[in-house]
């Protein structure tokens, strides 16, 4: 589904990703872990198409297509979804309006008719229940005045409704208390499917107690230094990141 080959990215004149390789297949959950400043968020932003990230080398192939020339909205319509580390507050734009506009943009791209108003509301209510969100969310402005946990839940709600093929979760666990973490993880787990890939970007192993990854990668200094299964995350939790950098076996 996603093949990243020797990706090099500069941000503000500084090289942040220095030849990153990663392959993600449909149905898999990957966790990308690493110390602060290793390039985790840069990777997520570049995949979603944010401005200001200069790709200086390598390639990203998504569903056998070159992803990099696509505008952010084209990526979204093709099934790429980024759950933001810092979801943006947008006063004056209604939460449900955004959900509906996003869903309809994706449906239109697929040649499907606009969603029926009743069906849509039923769908939103159903997913809100999953995310344990209050009815009042329906009429609030996007993320405006939301607590940290509410914002993250809202991101997963959007994901549940837009049903992406490739979901990138950027530090979704940061700032969550244990209850919110459980709700968010439940939401993500309910979205695991054979035709969907999920990439979790996280600093801590904690999230992986709830969302069990198939593959764990250590990103440091702009490269994936080590890959393994979920036991790697536990080892990182125990030993920190430094040993990976010093491990001669790391490639």
């Amino acid at each position, binding site marked *: 589904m996603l093949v990243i080959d020797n990706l090099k990215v500069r941000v503000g004149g500084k090289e942040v990703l220095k030849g990153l390789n990663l392959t993600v297949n449909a149905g898999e959950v990957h966790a990308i872990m690493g110390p602060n400043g290793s390039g985790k968020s840069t990777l997520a932003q570049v995949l*979603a*198409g*944010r*401005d200001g990230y200069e790709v200086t080398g390598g390639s990203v192939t998504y569903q056998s297509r070159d992803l990099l020339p696509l*505008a*952010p*909205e084209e*990526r*979204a*319509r093709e099934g790429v*979804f*980024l759950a*933001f580390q810092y*979801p*943006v507050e*947008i*006063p*004056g*734009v209604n939460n449900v309006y*955004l959900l509906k*506009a*996003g*869903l309809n*943009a*994706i449906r239109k*791209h697929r040649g499907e008719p606009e969603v029926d108003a009743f069906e849509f509301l039923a769908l939103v209510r159903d997913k809100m229940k999953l995310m344990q969100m209050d009815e009042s969310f329906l009429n609030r*402005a996007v993320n405006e005045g939301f607590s940290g946990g509410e914002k993250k839940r809202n991101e997963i709600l*959007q994901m549940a409704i*837009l049903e992406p093929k490739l979901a990138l979760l950027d530090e979704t666990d940061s700032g969550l208390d244990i209850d919110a973490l459980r709700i968010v993880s439940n939401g993500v787990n309910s979205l695991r499917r054979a035709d969907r890939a999920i990439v979790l970007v996280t600093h801590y192993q904690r999230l992986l107690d709830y969302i069990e990854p198939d593959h764990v990668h250590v990103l440091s200094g702009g490269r994936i230094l080590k890959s393994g299964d979920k036991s790697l995350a536990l080892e990182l939790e125990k030993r920190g990141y430094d040993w990976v950098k010093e491990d001669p076996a790391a490639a």
Partner: protein
Amino acid sequence: MSSVSPFNQPPALDHYRTLFAERTTNVDAVGADALTALREASLDRFFASGFPTQRDEAWKYTSLRRLETRRFTLADAPPVATEDVRWIPDCGYRIVLVNGRMLPTLSTPAPQPPGLTILSLAQWMQHSPGEVAEFLSQSAFAAPGPFENLNGAFSDDGIVIDIADGTTLDRPLYIVHHWRASKPSVSQMAHPRIIVRAGRQSQCSIVTHYTGDDAAESLTNAWVSFDLAAGAHVEHLRLQEEGSRTFHIYSSQVRLARDARFTSHDFALGASLGRSSTLVQLAESGASVNLSGLFAPTATQHLDTHIRIDHAAAHTQSQQDYRGIAAGRGRGVFNGKVIVQPHAQKIDAKQSNRNLLLSATAEIDSRPELEIYADDVKCSHGATTGQLDPVSLFYLRSRGLGEEQARALLIRAFAHSMLSTVKVGPVRTWLEERVQRRFDLSASGIS
């Protein structure tokens, strides 16, 4: 103030002198001399100042050069049918003016509710010019500026609205001013005068709607006064959507007595050059004023909002909350000034102006001013001017929304907070639709 300058303005002023001399008045009526004298005095003051120039602080960012070169004639009264005039339906008691003249045939025919008196200035002038002269000379409480003087010299119609003590109007008063050109080649001007007197403890909502088309060039030079007696509450909604060939000059004066409250929402969308000037005098303690508005110049429009709030008494409050959105080569100006007089303690004054620039060629000049001569006051002001937030834009696009759709959504969201406080339902709906249409165009780069 600019002084008389015979070298840069004489042709323009001569034109107005000629027009004034050619005008015929009903000289037979009792007191006609007094009205004529009042008009002559206005004209003299206008000649003494001339049109304001950019050397005048209050006009620093707005040039009147184009306006000065026009030879406006006094508007005629072409026949008007109902379908010629656009208005917002179900807005309340409707009063229609066309080319500055009140047209009872298009206005709400229903009898006026108790406590409300609406007078046509033209009719009153016809019958008792002496009374009108006396009334008008007492109705201005601040020194009139050049355009108010021009209005005073040429105004021959308008509306006097009187709300009796203790009256609460059940529906808004909806005043529509419309332009109708008889010949496209003739530039016309109108000087409607509106005087609102709200009695003690009275409450009312007034909508003034300036509209027109692009058939001919015109100058609307409106002068509006609000006089609020003790405890009166007046809400004013102003909709300026003149045609693209219209110069729109709106001068208003608001005076508030003890515990009176004035709320206004000003929407400047139309005209080639638009100026909205509001002078507020918080004359007695407990008076409060809450002004808000949106100005949205696009194409080559120039829209200027000028406010001056005079805290003349202790325990008075003022609030200003304005937003500007400039697209194309549009230019917006916000100049809000708060003056706190030496004896006026315990004052609360807030001022906010937030602006959005949608193109590299758009411009907004924001100038908040505070002049405080008392020490026990709470004053705050803030002004920001920026572009659409790129992170918000990216967020919306990452959810599948196209760039234009995302831009339109953010622009409308920015305008929305100004619309959401409008309580008159049909006006709010009308504004939402208008603003949406305008900014969908701006966002796609058409305007």
